[in-house]
Each structure stands twice: as C-alpha cells, then as structure tokens.
C-alpha cells in the first residue's frame, strides 16, 4: 500500500478535446478562414454562429480532413484532436469515424433505413446480424426515430421526409460511436417540431460526446451551446460563455450587432 506523500494535483477544470491554432483555410488562394484560435472542451456543446460565408463549414471540413478530396482546398495552421495533430494522422478513416458529421441538407443514402445505420459498423467489418440489429435499434432510438420507422426498416432511407432523414443521418453518425459530433446548420431543411426534438436529443448526447454546432440561428446557439464562437468574414470575432454573451457580456460591437439582429 502506497501512501501518497503529497496531495494529487487537482484535475484540470476542463479536458480539451480539440485545439485549433492559427488555422487558415483558402480555396485557390481565396481565403475562407484566417488565423482562428480556440479550444473545445470534452462533453460541451460548442456553438459557432455567423452569417453565410464566414468560414464555418470550411472549418468543419478541415476538421475531418476533407481537403483530401478537395484539391483546391488549402489548410494551414494546427488542429489538435484527442491529443494528436490531425495533419500527422495517416489513418484518416479512424479520424473520420471518431468525428460524426450531420450536413445542412439531410443526406439519406439510397440504401434501406437499416443499411443506412448499419453502414458504419459494416465498414469496420462487423458482420454479426445480432450486433448490427442492436446498433440499428440503439442509434435510431437515440435519434428519436425508432418508433416511426421500426416497422419499415427495409424501405429506402432517401425517401423519408426531410425531418426524418435528418434524424436518420444523426442515427448514422451515432453508429460510428463518435467522440465528437459536428452539426452543420442541421435545421435548415427541418420543420420546427423536428428541430426541437433533435435539440432535445443533442442535450442528452452531450453526456457521451462533444458536440460542435454550427448554426445560423442565434437563438438555437443560445438554447443549446455552452460556449459560443462568433465567426465573421473568415475570422473568429469573439468566443465566450453563451449565457454571458447573450446577456450583455459580448465585448465586440460586431457581435452585439449580430446578436441583436442588426445585420446578417
């Protein structure tokens, strides 16, 4: 039995899962994002707000190393995810599995509902039917879609309604068992009721994963995000505690204007 001779160091208040340092992104020399710095903490909902063309989506693409597929996209600076500089990761498949993405327009793949959700486990080599059944039911339930589709799992996912498809893509992202969930303006093509249901889902998911929520709905960020960053014209203008930012704590005049709806 070892007796500690000195008290254990206090654990850091927040574990940082994602660190962005001097990140710049350009397409064919045209800057989309420049000199962005921030940290995302584990198990928080990190909101990114800002008008169109402010570089939010480019940031999400860089995070998942999608520049591999976009030859015109140039990423500079450093992104550290789960302790690794992602530009040094060679197994990008693992990186992308750890980061689930939900797109603005729901993308139900032209496969059955079951196959949509079972795709990620299958890609990693899971063949066991019982195991796949379990994943499908668990993920669809978590995404608040199971009750609506449990009797027609074999019908095409791409023929579901927009709101259902968006929940299907969330279920699909969850089937990757991601460390982090990126949502890119998920409510653009979704009705308000479904939006609220998905927001409830996100609040629950927060306990298991980190969520980065890009949204152009200021109030959605206020409802969900623990901290919020305001992006404008390719740079991060302000970053802070959501509650503080929305209750008069914003310091930059542009942020105040945006939050009050004076532009954007």
């Amino acid at each position, binding site marked *: 039995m070892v007796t500690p001779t000195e008290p254990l160091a206090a654990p850091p208040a927040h574990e940082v899962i994602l660190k962005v340092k001097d990140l710049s992104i350009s397409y064919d020399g045209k800057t989309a994002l420049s000199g962005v710095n921030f940290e995302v903490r584990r198990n928080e909902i990190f909101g990114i707000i800002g008008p169109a063309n402010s570089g939010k989506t480019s940031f999400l693409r860089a995070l*998942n190393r*999608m520049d591999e*597929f976009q*030859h015109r996209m140039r990423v500079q600076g450093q992104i550290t995810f789960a302790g690794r500089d992602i530009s040094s990761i060679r197994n*990008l*498949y*693992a*990186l*992308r*599995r750890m*980061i*689930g*993405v939900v*797109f603005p*327009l729901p*993308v*139900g*793949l*032209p*496969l059955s509902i079951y196959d949509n959700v079972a*795709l*990620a486990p299958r*890609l*990693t080599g899971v063949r066991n039917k019982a195991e796949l059944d379990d994943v499908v039911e668990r993920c669809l339930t978590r995404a608040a879609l199971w009750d609506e589709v449990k009797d027609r799992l074999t019908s*095409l996912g*791409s*023929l579901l309604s927009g709101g259902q498809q968006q929940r299907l*893509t969330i279920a*699909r*992202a969850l089937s*990757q068992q991601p460390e982090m969930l990126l949502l890119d303006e998920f409510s653009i093509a979704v009705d308000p009721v479904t939006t609220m249901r998905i927001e409830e889902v996100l609040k629950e998911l927060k306990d298991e994963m980190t969520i980065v929520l890009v949204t152009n709905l200021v109030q959605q960020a206020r409802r969900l995000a623990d901290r919020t960053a305001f992006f404008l014209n390719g740079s991060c203008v302000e970053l802070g505690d959501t509650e503080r930012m929305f209750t008069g704590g914003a310091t930059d005049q542009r942020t105040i204007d945006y939050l009050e709806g004076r532009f954007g």
Partner: protein
Amino acid sequence: MTTLDTNDPAADPEVQTSVFAASPNEHKAHTVQQVFKIGFLAVTLLLLIPAAAILGVLVFKGAPGLTWEFLTTKPTDNGAAGGISTALVGTVWMTGVALAFSLPLGVAAAIYLSEYARDNWLTRTINVAIVNLAGVPSIVHALFGIGAFVYFLEFGKSVLAAGCTLAVMTLPVVIVSTRESMQAVPQAFRDACWNMGATRWQTIWKVVLPNSGSGILTGLILVVCRAVGETAPIMFTGAVFFRQFYASGLFDKSMALSYHLFSVSMHVKDVPEHVPYTVALTLILVVLSMNAVAIYFRMKLRGKKKW
C-alpha cells in the same frame, strides 16, 4: 389549335370586357408558339418514316422465309441455299467475346475516371483519347485488329481476334455511358460516406456503383448493337465468307450474320430474292432480343427511384 380570349363579342360574348382578353402581342406570341410546336412535331414524325420503312420492308419481304428450319440448318451452296445456323452462332460468339472484354475493362476505366482521377493533364489526355477512339471509323479498327490481335498477339484469324477488335471499338461507348451515370450520383452521397470513414472503394462499392446500374446497362445495349451489326472489323479478323462448321473454339474462324448478309446481297449467285431480307430481319431480331433483356432490367432499376 387553341385560341386566346378576345374582346370580339361575336366570337366570344362572355369575355367581352374580360381582363383576360389577349393583346395583339399575345396573339402573335401564341401563334408563333403554335407554329413551332407543330413544326417540331412534324420533324419528329418525319424521323419515324425511315425506321418504319426499314422494319416494314424487312418484315414484308423477309418474314415468310424466317422459319425455325432456316435458323437451325447449316447453309449450303455458298449461302444460296440452306439456313444460317453457323452464321447465327458465330455472331453470338463474337458478341459474347466483345462483351466479356469491353464491359469489365470499360467499367473499370470509367470508375477510375469518375471516382479517382484528378483533373490534370493526364486525365484530360485520356478523355481526349476516348473521344477520338469513339470517332475512329470501323474499317480502321479492323486494320488495327489485324495488326494487334491476328498477327502481333498471334490469335490468328479467329473468333477471339474478331471479338477483341469489336471490344476495342465499343470500349469508349461503355466508358462514357458508365462514367456519365456515375457522375449523376449526387456528390453529397460520397461526402457522407467519406465522412463516416469509408475508403473511396467502399464508397464506390456501396453507394456509387449500385446507383449507376442503368448506365452500365446502356453501355451493354450499345455494345450489343454495334458488335452484332458491324461488318468491317470482323471481315479481316475472324469472319469467313462460307463455312459449314461451327467454330470449334475461341481460336477458330466462324461465319457471322452481318458478313453473311453482305455476301448474300452482293456476291453469291442464284440467291433466292427473299434470303437477304430474311437474314437482315434475323440480324435485327437478334439485336432486339438481346437488348430486350437489358432494357427490362434497366426499366426495373429506373422504376425504383432512389432519391
């Protein structure tokens, strides 16, 4: 021809002061539109004439001679008498060989060009080459076939050499139709797959290929059409004028329908008048029946719209 509302009480008492009464300009535009519609319809109907005429003449003159016996007996007397069985079987052989080579190779090339290739000078060169290959006259393909397959690869004048020549000739068609249908699969599907950690091949296999089936089948139809009908490429590479034996294997020569049609129409003496028509009708029926299968599957694929 429909007419527009007017303010003329004699023509249309109800709409005398209607806000829907047409202005002179609207009358004119409407007339022009009607003229164009009828003009386009007339041109379309005009195009039906040759198709209907060809089929009509062939059926009228050739159908009486088209019997089971004609299809299944061997020709005699240089093709002037007897049936066409050796030519029919030879055509099926050559078309089969052409398909066996051009479909897999063409689809593979299309996958590379659509899913892997970057837009650089190499890809652009390849694309230009494919377009040019499609534009090469079939007689030139025939000469290439002699040089490449008959002599250089030492296939001899054979079903294999003829099939390979047809395959080269039809490759661009397969590549282009497959590539186009892969490009029609929305990019968002690939993005979604890649973001889940799928490799390019997994994405192609699970999402892109299953949704480009109709393009691949279109390629197949076009290959069959051309391979069955072409005469020049096989004349020098594997088809013979007259032979009473079936090809004993891939390295043997054979008669072929298209070449047979050419000979009985032009070169053989004392051919009964109906025979060339019957052979031509058979040729068309072979193409149509092979295509019917592919068209059936394509309709099934298209009927099941996926997004």
